[in-house]
């Protein structure tokens, strides 16, 4: 069986950040720790550290996303890197330029890192497979496959509220089938030792053989799924699910799977509620929960910047290490 593109240098350090599959707990903790250290940067008067000064990071967004792109951009700028934002869905591909042509052009501009968002599963791996050896690729979401920085910011958020991953019950609610976020979260939770991950939703939104393939417990009943959980992760529901015969209506979805204070009562009293945003209020959850005391949703956004700073600085720092090692220098940072 063939393996996915290697994400690590020979010394075990991060080279690309494409998926959480295959990364061990020590590395995930390293990301969490490093991101924790960056949390203070945003509170400084000068919100910058010089870790990636002189590096060029290109945000390649083949699928539009304001929020994710903004946090990546901010994270790169706080690391003192130069940032290029390319919204490719509206430029190159419309002119018939292939994905590889776009890559080659950017490589010729001496870009050090591609942050890639693409509507197709496997796109980040494809780009990493074909990128020049000196370029790192960070996956900012590929199709239904993976969204590893989102999952890691969620892990950071959980880490800041819950002492020990190995004691947690976590429920993920909503459209698991189409969710790259859920897939990456499930892998991260397992790697960090969470003993019970549940996914909650109607059969139409749960992938085939989810128990076996993803190692989760599947619940179609919200009440059953929420019982005694410590962490509740809501997923965003796309409007088009209604037109593709996956759900009858937003109304029925909310009635069955929408999170309310009342329904949350069966969860652990100190359960936290997360959502990757943007929230459809009244569809995935009501405003009382979204703005309530258990909600850590806005904290997730700040944590997102810190996690992206951590991942980008690790990949780019390891680049320096590789370069200086290959040059025979001894002062690798």
């Amino acid at each position, binding site marked *: *069986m*063939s393996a996915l593109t290697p994400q690590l240098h020979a010394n075990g350090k991060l080279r690309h950040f494409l998926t959480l599959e295959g990364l061990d707990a020590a590395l995930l903790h390293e990301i969490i720790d490093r991101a924790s250290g960056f949390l203070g940067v945003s509170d400084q008067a000068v919100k910058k550290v010089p870790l990636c000064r002189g590096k060029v990071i290109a945000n390649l967004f083949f699928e539009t996303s304001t929020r994710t792109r903004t946090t990546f951009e901010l994270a790169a700028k706080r690391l003192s890197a130069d940032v290029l934002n390319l919204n490719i869905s509206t430029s190159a591909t419309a002119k018939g330029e292939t994905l590889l042509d776009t890559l080659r052009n950017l490589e010729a501009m001496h870009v050090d890192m591609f942050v890639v968002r693409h509507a*197709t*599963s*496997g796109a980040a*791996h*494809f780009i990493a497979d074909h990128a020049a050896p000196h370029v790192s690729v960070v996956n900012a979401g590929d199709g239904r496959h993976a969204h590893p920085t989102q999952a890691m910011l969620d892990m950071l958020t959980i880490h800041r509220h819950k002492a020990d991953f190995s004691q947690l019950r976590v429920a993920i609610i909503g459209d698991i089938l189409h969710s*790259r976020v859920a897939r990456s979260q499930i892998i991260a939770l397992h790697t960090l030792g969470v003993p019970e991950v549940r996914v909650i939703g109607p059969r139409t939104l749960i992938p*085939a053989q989810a128990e076996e393939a993803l190692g989760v417990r599947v619940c179609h009943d919200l009440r059953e799924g929420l019982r005694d959980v410590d962490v509740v992760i809501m997923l965003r529901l796309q409007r088009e699910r209604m037109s593709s015969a996956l759900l009858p209506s937003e109304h029925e979805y909310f009635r069955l799977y929408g999170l309310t204070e009342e329904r949350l009562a069966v969860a652990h009293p100190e359960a936290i509620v997360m959502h990757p945003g943007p929230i459809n209020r009244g569809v995935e959850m009501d405003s009382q929960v979204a703005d309530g005391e258990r909600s850590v949703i806005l904290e997730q956004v700040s944590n997102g910047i810190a996690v992206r700073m951590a991942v980008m600085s690790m990949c780019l720092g390891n680049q320096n290490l590789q370069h200086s090692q290959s040059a025979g220098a001894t002062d690798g940072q």
Partner: protein
Amino acid sequence: MASSPKITIRNGRLIDPASGIDSQTDLHIAEGRVAAIGAAPSGFQPDRTLDASGRLVLPGLVDLSARLREPGHEHKATIASETRAAAASGITTLCCPPDTQPVIDTPAVAQLIQQTANRNGYARVLPIGALTRGLKGETLAEMAALKRAGCPALGEAERPIRSTHVLRRALEYAASFAMPVFLHPLDPELSAGGCAHEGRISARLGLPAIPEAAETLAVARGLALAEQTGARIHFRGLSTARAVALLSEARRRGVRASGDVSIHQLFLTEDDLAGLDANCHLLPPLRTLADREALRAAVVNGDLEAVCSDHQPHDADAKLAPFPETDPGIAALETLLPLALRLVEEGVIGLPEMIARLTTGPAGVVDQPYGRLGIGEIADVCVLDPEARWTLTPETLLGRAGNTPFIGTEMHGRVSWTLLGGRVVFERVEQD
């Protein structure tokens, strides 16, 4: 046409499933046909003698599905490039699906393909005619004209007819001329946008999935219509255990249906998608290990009477994209026989049975007199060294395209000579 030479293939192990011959003997060829087996006819003076000691002498292989990409997609491959690769791989008869550009829905296109193949002279190409005009699934193609132009069967390629009504009428009309119909069983709606089997791997990697029911539903529909209309149908490229079970059950009831499997489905499974190798992007998708085992069993017991290459050569760009966006298919002509011999080597199937699935089995599906070596039969012959071991590399490929997941894999058996209608069309230079 110049008279073909007299050739004796000496001392090989002749396996002819049609006549049940499996013995060490000589094969004598004259005027393009088998003149004698064993002792030469009196006064027979061969122009050439091929020493087949230690080698197998088989009927030339018949492949029910090989895309040659001509006309219309010559940037991927041509009739010349692919028939040459076929000859080097022991394949002497190729059926070409109708999804060329233009589609094989007129006698002109069918004849063009055969003429081009004849001019190159490496292998015989039998065009499969389109069931409907432009493969659009709306109006019937001129089937009788296609038959006169040399199409042994009709088909829908990978563009299944959506309308059950149109399919019913197409089957009835084809049955008027006793033409078998190739169905590509994949429900267009259940498979839309999919690139992987709906199962463990698609769940894990978030790949748009094709459920098993996309195939079983289409097989059930085809069987019901075959039973209703009396038409003869052939399921091209089955991939699931349940579809094979449906077919076997219907055949026992006397429904005139047959089926085949693409050779790679007998080796690869959904697990091979784990590395997102675009060369494992296939249609139908690679299924589970249980499906693979059921397909193998059906090849052994003859419920699937043919094994095909399902050759689909691509230009490099077709595979240079994220997995779901790549074009499906494997360039498979040159691995058909070696992989089949590996099944024999692994003890999955006996050698004569395996050879039957590559010769008489497929020839019977399209009612053609090829793939047999009895006296008087057309002398399409493949002589190969069954002990040879070699590794498939881009350099060993003779076809135009290199899109195969078997690069780097050890191959079993190597063709020494291929004869088409009594003429040597391939000869390996470095004979050992």
